[in-house]
C-alpha cells in the first residue's frame, strides 16, 4: 500500500519535472529570455548581498557634504547626490526596495486574484457575477489613480505601497484564474474527483489550478515588472517609500530638482528601473513562448 502511494507520487513528480524540463529546453533556446534571466539573477544577487557590501547608515543614507554633486568618475561611477551620497551604492541598495515591492505586491494580487477567480469560475452563478462585476469596477479605475488613492488613504509607507500596487493589479489575476477554471470545469477528471467525494477546495487546488499554472507564472513575471514601475511612479510623486530610503523612484524625484545642471542624477536610477523591468519582460515573454506553444509564432 505504502509502496504504491510512493510510486504514484514518484510518477507524478517525474511527470511534472518533464513538462518543466521541456519548458526549460524551450527557454534555453530563446536568447532574449536567457539575457533576461542572467540580468535578473545579477540584480537579485546584488540586492541580496548589498547589506554585506555597504553599511546602510553610513554608505547609503549617511550625508557627506564635502562629496556632494560630484559628476561620475572612477571613484563614484554614477556620481554623488545632493547630500554627497554615492548614487551607485544607493542604486544597488535600492534594488532591495524595488524587487521587494514588486514581488510582494504581485504576491498579494496573485493570492487574492487566484482565490477569487478560481472560486468564481468554479462556483458560478450569482457569486461569479458579483466577483466579475467587482473586477470590472476595479479595472475601470486607472491603476495609477487607484494606487494613489490607496496610498493617500492609508498613509505613506513601504507596506502601504505594496498593498496599493497589489490591489491595483489584482483584477487581471482574477480573470486568468476564472478563465482557466471555466476551461476545465466540465472535464471528466474533475467530475471524477467530485464523484469520489473530494472537497471543492481540493479539486480547485489539485485538479484545476495546475492547468493554468503556466499562464499564472507568465502573468506574474510580467506583472512584477509593471508593479516595479507603478511603485517607482508613486515614489516619484512622493507617495511611496519614505525618504531617506534609496528607492529608485524617489531618487528620480530628487534628481529632477537638479536636472538642469546635474543630469546624471536623473539618468542612473532610471536606467536601473529600465534594466530590471526589461529583464523581467524578456523572461516573461520567453516563458510565455516556452510554456504556451499555442501563442508562439
Amino acid at each position, binding site marked *: 500500500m505504502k509502496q504504491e502511494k510512493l510510486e504514484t507520487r514518484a510518477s507524478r513528480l517525474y511527470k511534472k519535472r518533464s513538462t518543466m524540463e521541456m519548458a526549460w529546453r524551450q527557454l534555453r533556446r530563446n536568447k532574449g529570455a536567457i539575457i533576461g534571466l542572467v540580468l535578473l539573477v545579477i540584480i537579485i544577487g546584488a540586492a541580496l548581498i548589498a547589506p554585506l557590501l555597504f553599511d546602510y547608515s553610513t554608505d547609503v543614507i549617511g550625508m557627506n557634504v564635502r562629496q556632494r554633486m560630484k559628476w561620475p568618475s572612477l571613484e563614484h561611477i554614477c556620481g554623488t547626490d545632493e547630500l554627497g551620497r554615492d548614487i551607485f551604492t544607493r542604486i544597488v541598495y535600492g534594488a532591495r526596495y524595488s524587487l521587494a515591492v514588486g514581488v510582494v505586491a504581485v504576491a498579494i494580487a496573485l493570492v487574492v486574484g487566484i482565490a477569487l477567480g478560481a472560486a468564481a469560475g468554479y462556483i458560478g452563478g450569482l457569486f461569479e457575477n458579483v466577483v466579475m462585476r467587482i473586477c470590472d469596477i476595479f479595472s475601470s479605475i486607472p*491603476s495609477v489613480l487607484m494606487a*494613489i488613492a490607496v496610498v493617500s488613504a492609508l498613509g505613506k509607507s513601504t507596506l502601504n505601497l505594496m498593498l496599493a500596487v497589489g490591489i491595483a493589479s489584482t483584477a487581471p489575476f482574477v480573470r486568468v484564474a476564472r478563465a482557466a477554471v471555466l476551461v476545465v470545469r466540465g472535464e471528466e477528471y474533475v467530475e471524477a474527483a467530485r464523484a469520489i467525494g473530494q472537497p471543492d477546495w481540493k479539486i480547485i487546488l489539485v485538479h484545476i489550478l495546475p492547468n493554468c499554472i503556466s499562464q499564472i507564472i507568465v502573468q506574474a513575471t510580467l506583472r512584477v515588472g509593471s508593479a516595479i514601475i507603478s511603485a517607482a511612479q508613486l515614489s516619484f510623486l512622493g507617495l511611496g517609500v519614505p525618504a531617506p530610503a534609496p528607492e529608485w523612484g524617489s531618487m528620480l524625484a530628487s534628481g529632477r530638482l537638479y536636472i538642469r545642471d546635474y543630469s546624471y542624477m536623473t539618468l542612473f536610477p532610471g536606467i536601473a528601473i529600465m534594466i530590471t523591468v526589461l529583464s523581467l519582460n524578456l523572461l516573461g515573454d520567453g516563458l510565455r513562448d516556452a510554456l504556451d506553444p499555442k501563442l508562439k509564432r
Partner: protein
Amino acid sequence: MQGAGSCALHLLFDGANMYKYIIKRLLMLIPVLLGVAFVIFAIMNVAEGDPVYQVAGPDATEEQLEALREEMGLNGSLIQRYFRYIGNLLKGDLGTSYISKMDVMKLYFQRLPNTLKLASLAMLVAVLISVPLGIIAAVNQNSWKDTLAMILALIGLSMPNFWLGLLLMLLFALKLGWFPSGGSEGFISVVLPAVTVGVGLAALLTRTTRSSMLDVLRQDYLRTARAKGVTERKVIYYHALRNALIPIITIFGVQFSNVLGGSVLAETVFAWPGVGRLVVDAIDQRDIPTVTGALIMTTMLVTVVNLIVDIVYAYVDPRIKAQYTK
C-alpha cells in the same frame, strides 16, 4: 479572427438590435459606476484624521466642529454619506474643495480640457509610431526590421514613462531649447508631455499591430486578392490593415484608462495643468472632496469611452453584437 475578413467590415447595421445592444450596455454601466464611486468614496474615507479639524483650525469649539461636520456632509455613517454623495452627484454637485473653497465640479471641468488635449495628442503620437512600425514588423516577419521593431517596443514597455519624460525634457527643453520644459503656453507646451505618454502607449500598440497583422496576413482572402492581381502594397494597406485595425481599436479603448493614468505623471513632470496634477496636488493638501470627485469623474470618463469603443466595435463586427442580442 477567422472569418473576420468576410464580415467584419460589412457594416451590417440592423437598427433595432443595435439599439437593444446599446441600451443593454448602458444599463450594465450603472452598477459599475455606482460601484466605482463607492470604492473610491470608501477608500478616501478611511484617510486618517478628521478633516473637520483641518478646516476649522485649532481653536474651534465642539459645537462649531459639529456644525461644520454637518455643513461638510461628514455626519452619519459611511453608507448614509455615500448615498448623499451620489444624490448630490446626480445633481452635478461634487462638494467644495477644502483648500480653494471652489466647487469641485467646476475645478474638474477647468482642468479636463487640458488633460483631454494631452491624451488625444498622445494617442495620435502612439498611432503614428506604432501602426507603421507594427506593419513593417509583421510584413517582414523574422527579419532584422522585425527584430528591431520588437526590441524598440520592449524597451518602450520597460521604461518608466515619467523617466522618459525627464529624458525628453533634458534633451529637447534644457539642452536644445526647442520646447518649454513645463507650463501651459499654447500648443508647444503640450508636445513633450504628449510624446512622453504617446511613446509609452506606442510600445504596446506596436506589439498589438504586429500580431494582429500577422493574424490577418494568413487569411485566405488575401491570397484571393493577390491571385486577382492586386498589388502587394494594396493588399497590405487596404485589404489587410483594415481588418487588422479591429483589435487595435479595442486595445485603444482599453488603453485610454492607462493614458489618463500616465498623464498624471507626465503632467507632474511637465507642470501641465490637467486633472492629474489636480489630483496629486489635492492629495498633498489632503483635500479629500477634490481627490474623490476627480477620481470618480475620471473613472466615469474612462468607462464611457470604453463603452463608446465597444459600440463602435460592435457596429464594425456583428459577432460582438450577436452575443448581447441573443
